[in-house]
C-alpha cells in the first residue's frame, strides 16, 4: 500500500505492516482524543519513524492516491485536530 507523510511525500509500505501501524496509530488517536499533549508527540514520532523505516519512497511521478496519510513531523495536536475536523483545512 501507499502511505503519505504530509510534507514529505509517498512511500510504499508492505501490506503486512498494516497491523503494526494500526496499533501505533491507535495510540496517536487515543492521545488526540484524551487531549494528551505529552502522549501525542512520542506517539506521532514513533509512527513516523516506523513508516520511514519500513517504507520505500514512491516514484515521484506516481499518481496513485494514498491508502493512509500521516501528519507531518512538526504537526501539533491542534494541527491534527484541524485536519480531522475536515472541511476547509485541506486546500486545493
Amino acid at each position, binding site marked *: 500500500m501507499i*502511505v*503519505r507523510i*504530509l*510534507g*514529505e*511525500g509517498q512511500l510504499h509500505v508492505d501490506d503486512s505492516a498494516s497491523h503494526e*501501524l*494500526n496499533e501505533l*496509530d*491507535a495510540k*496517536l*488517536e487515543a492521545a*488526540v482524543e484524551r487531549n494528551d499533549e505529552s502522549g501525542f508527540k512520542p506517539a506521532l514520532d514513533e*509512527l513516523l519513524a516506523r513508516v520511514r523505516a519500513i517504507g520505500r519512497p514512491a516514484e*515521484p*511521478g*506516481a*499518481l*496513485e*492516491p*494514498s*491508502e*493512509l*496519510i*500521516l*501528519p507531518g513531523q512538526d504537526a501539533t495536536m491542534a494541527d*491534527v485536530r484541524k*485536519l*480531522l475536523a*475536515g472541511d476547509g*483545512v*485541506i*486546500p*486545493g
Partner: protein
Amino acid sequence: MGVMKRVSMLFRAKANKALDRMEDPRETLDYSYQTQLELLQKVRRGVADVATSRKRVELQINQLQLSSDKLDRQARDALAVGREDLARDALTRKAGVQSQMSDLNTQYTALQGEEEKLTGASQRLQAKVDAFRTKKETIKATYTAAEAQTRINEAFTGISEEMGDVGLAIQRAEDKTEQMKARAGAIDELMASGALDDMVGGPRDDIQAELDRMGAGHDVDAELARMKGELGQGGAPRQIEGTANGTDAAAAGAASAASDGQTAQAMPPVQSADQPQAGDGT
C-alpha cells in the same frame, strides 16, 4: 478508525467532490492541469518568500553581532579608564543584544527548514504535474467522455492529494513568514530607535559619547600641559578657552565629515574667523 485512515479519506472526499462536478472529464482535465500549474507557481513564489525572509533575518543577526562586538569593546575601554559603571551599562546592553540574537538564530533555523520543505514539495509536485499532463493527453486522445471518467479518477485523486499536501505546506510557510516579517519589522524599529544600539558611532550612542568625552578630556589636558611647557606657564585664560572650543569644533567637524564632506569643508572658515587674536598672539 485511526488518524491515518481518516485523513486519507478526507483528502479523497475532497477529490471525489471535484470529480463529481465534471461533466466532460476530458475538458475538465485541462482545467485541472491549469490549476496544477498555478499551484506550482505559488509554491515557487513561496520558496522565494521564505528565502527573502531568511536573508533578512541573516542581515539582522549580522547587525546585532556588530552591536555586540562594539558594546564589548566599549566595556573594555570603559574599564581601562576606570569607569565600571559605563562598562556595566555596556555589558547589560550586550546581554540584551545577545538574547535577541539567539532568538533570531532559532527563527533562522526554522525558516531554513521551511525553505527546504517547500523546495522538496515543489519538486514532488512538478514530477506529478508532468506525469498528469502525459496521462491527460493520452486519455483525451484515446477515450470517450464516459470512458475517460473512470480512467482519470485515480490520477485525479492522486494529484489532488499532492496538491492538498503542497497547499498545506504553503499555508504553513506563509504563516511562518508572516510571523517573521512582524518580528523582523519590530527589530528594525528597535534598531532605528537606538534601543538596540546598532548605530555604530551614531548620535544616540551615549556610552561612546561619554568615552569620547573622556578621551577628548585627556587630549585637552595633554595639549594644555604641552602649551604650558612652551609658554613657560604664561597661558592666559582666554587663550585656553579658545583652544578648548577649537578642539570641540574640530571634533564635531570630524564627526560630520564621516557622513557629509561638505560640512567639514565649511568648518575651517568659521574656525579662522574665531581665532584672529590667537594668530596675533603667536
